[in-house]
């Protein structure tokens, strides 16, 4: 390591250090009983870290800290997206926790650390960093799941997530170890120069990447590694479940995307079985998620299965190199907005366990039109109805798949998304077109912070549906400045 570069390297990853500082500061403030400002500090900290990365991050991609991390290229944008996921989540958390008489301020520190882990993972330039990032993130998420100690569901969720998550991490680690065994390096840049070496040991390379894939597919809840999702989301405090469903998936998908690009896992080389595996997983995940989601009577579980289905669409995008990668980054950002919104709103409505039953949302359109309207926007967008952003993101992914001649898979994706539209619409139908004798029993308390969050998210979803280039152009620009990814994808 060249110690002369320490200063400039540190500057390049300053947003990360800012997140670290904020997290530690929160813990410090908490121990000095300065509680009130903590959520604000967390939110502003993440916001400024994201803004810093986005505004002051290096424009051209470069590797720092002896090739451990990547700065520039797509990383500022990814950092911004991940930080925004954290910021939007933090808008919903204080109100939710206060309502459940649980004022554990460590949550905010964990949230910041989780974002930090995600950023580490998504910007890693070394498989070791990928793993450390993943573990940092997962550790925080395990604790989120188990946050409500007196609630059996929460206990169950924490235990399940922890055990299954460790199991999946072991596969990832094994895969990474095998890659090291073949090549003697974990540096992604170096690995991409050793493609031929990897491809010579074909069977071993397949197994190594297959095992790494398992670790990622578990995190993004793809079939058949999905089954923890509904139980864990259900036990997790709702806004944090939303964070779990979005931020962690975004980080995992970006990281997986980078590995796929650099190791040419789905290159159109002859007899590429990994591409088949990925395509098959995408197919099964789309079909399974949508079919099972349609059968749920609990909104939270429905959203959980729907998030599985969405992972299927993103996997579809991953099957199509470079262009698909851009599409999935867009997809994940939009998906993050919609899902944090939907989970956040669900959290605002939730006072008793039954409140997440779809039935209790009957007639909400009458009793709280604003909130029901916002929910309708989120659900319509999740269903992919134009002109909302959810349509645009799905469209981009399907388009990228079609460009790579994955027409059959894209068609299946579209078919399943038509099926998917039904279960989202069922909720809208209940909210607006069904009136019961009594108005809805849900009591949506409209506190300032969450209400603002909902409003901003709704506006963003509409805005980005009509002007998708607001996000698409920066994504494209980031990709074209990301020399490493571009290089790896050249034939």
């Amino acid at each position, binding site marked *: 390591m060249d110690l002369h570069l320490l200063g400039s390297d540190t500057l390049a990853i300053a947003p990360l250090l800012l997140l670290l500082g904020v997290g530690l500061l929160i813990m410090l403030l908490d121990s000095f009983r300065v509680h009130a400002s903590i959520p604000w500090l967390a939110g502003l900290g993440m916001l400024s870290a994201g803004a810093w990365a986005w505004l002051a991050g290096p424009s051209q991609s470069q590797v720092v800290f002896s090739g451990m991390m990547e700065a520039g290229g797509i990383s500022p944008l990814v950092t911004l997206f991940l930080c925004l996921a954290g910021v939007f989540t933090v808008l919903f958390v204080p109100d939710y926790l206060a309502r459940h008489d649980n004022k554990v*301020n460590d949550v905010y520190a964990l949230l910041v650390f989780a974002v930090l*882990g995600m950023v580490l993972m998504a910007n890693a330039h070394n498989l070791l960093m990928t793993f450390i990032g993943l573990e940092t993130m997962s550790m925080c998420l395990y604790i989120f799941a188990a946050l409500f100690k007196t609630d059996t569901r929460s206990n169950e969720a924490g235990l399940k997530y922890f055990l299954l998550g460790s199991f999946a991490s072991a596969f990832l680690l094994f895969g990474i170890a095998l890659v090291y065994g073949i090549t003697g390096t974990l540096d992604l840049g170096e690995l991409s120069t050793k493609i031929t070496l990897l491809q010579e040991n074909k069977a071993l390379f397949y197994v190594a990447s297959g095992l790494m894939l398992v670790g990622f597919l578990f995190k993004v809840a793809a079939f058949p590694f999905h089954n923890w999702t509904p139980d864990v989301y259900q036990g997790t405090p709702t806004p944090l479940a939303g964070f779990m469903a979005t931020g962690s998936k975004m980080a995992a998908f970006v990281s997986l995307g980078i590995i796929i690009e650099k190791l040419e896992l789905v290159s159109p080389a002859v007899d590429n079985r990994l591409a088949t595996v990925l395509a098959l997983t995408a197919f099964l995940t789309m079909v399974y998620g949508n079919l099972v989601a349609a059968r749920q009577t609990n909104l939270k579980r429905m959203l959980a299965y729907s998030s599985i289905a969405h992972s299927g669409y993103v996997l579809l995008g991953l099957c199509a190199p470079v262009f698909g990668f851009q599409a999935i980054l867009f997809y994940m950002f939009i998906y993050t907005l919609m899902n944090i919104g939907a989970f956040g709103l669900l959290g605002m409505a939730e006072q008793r366990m039954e409140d997440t039953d779809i039935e209790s949302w009957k007639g909400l359109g009458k009793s709280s039109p604003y909130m029901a309207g916002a929910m309708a926007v989120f659900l319509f967008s999740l269903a992919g109805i134009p002109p909302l952003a959810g349509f645009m993101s799905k469209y981009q992914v399907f388009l990228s798949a079609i460009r790579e001649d994955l027409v059959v898979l894209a068609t299946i994706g579209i078919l399943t998304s038509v099926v998917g539209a039904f279960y989202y619409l069922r909720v809208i139908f209940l909210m607006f077109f069904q009136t019961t004798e009594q108005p809805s029993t849900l009591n949506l308390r409209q506190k300032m912070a969450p209400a603002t969050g909902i409003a901003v998210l709704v506006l963003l979803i509409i805005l980005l549906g009509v002007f998708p280039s607001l996000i698409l152009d920066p994504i494209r620009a980031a990709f074209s400045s990301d020399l490493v990814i571009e290089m790896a994808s050249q034939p």
Partner: protein
Amino acid sequence: MEAATTIQTVLFWTFSVLGLAGAVGLLFNRNAVYAALSLVLNFFSIAGLYLSLGAEFLAAVQILVYAGAIMVLFLFVIMLLNMQEEKGVFTFDIRRGAAFILGFAFVAEMMVVLKGFWNHEAGGEFTYGKVEPIGRALLTDYLFPFEMISIVLIAALIGAILVARRHTHQEG
């Protein structure tokens, strides 16, 4: 075959068999204390494997952290909870059967792949397992991950405290 290689082969097999025996003992012992002690055997064997590879530092850490600190904690917990020997005979239900089959299938698959790959002649000296190169690496090339791992530890600590703390209703 050189003498050094022969000794290494002997050591490898010894520690491997011992390690596996420890692992099996952990799974099949119905007495919690015996199971924990089997695990200690496993840890020591792995430390032995490290040592035979010349990774002295790793071997030492393995013994200090796992066999020392973690196992002592385990045993404390076992004694505090006063765990009884589990009752009942060994049942072989369908789930367990499936687990065995899948486990063997996985091992078989890995053996097919790894067969013939790692029969490289052990060449040269293992220098990277010594304390000095590890320390150097941790503070130069691996400085960043080395520091970042501390966040995982912090998060784990917070988690442990949150789960263990008596009152969740903290005044805010």
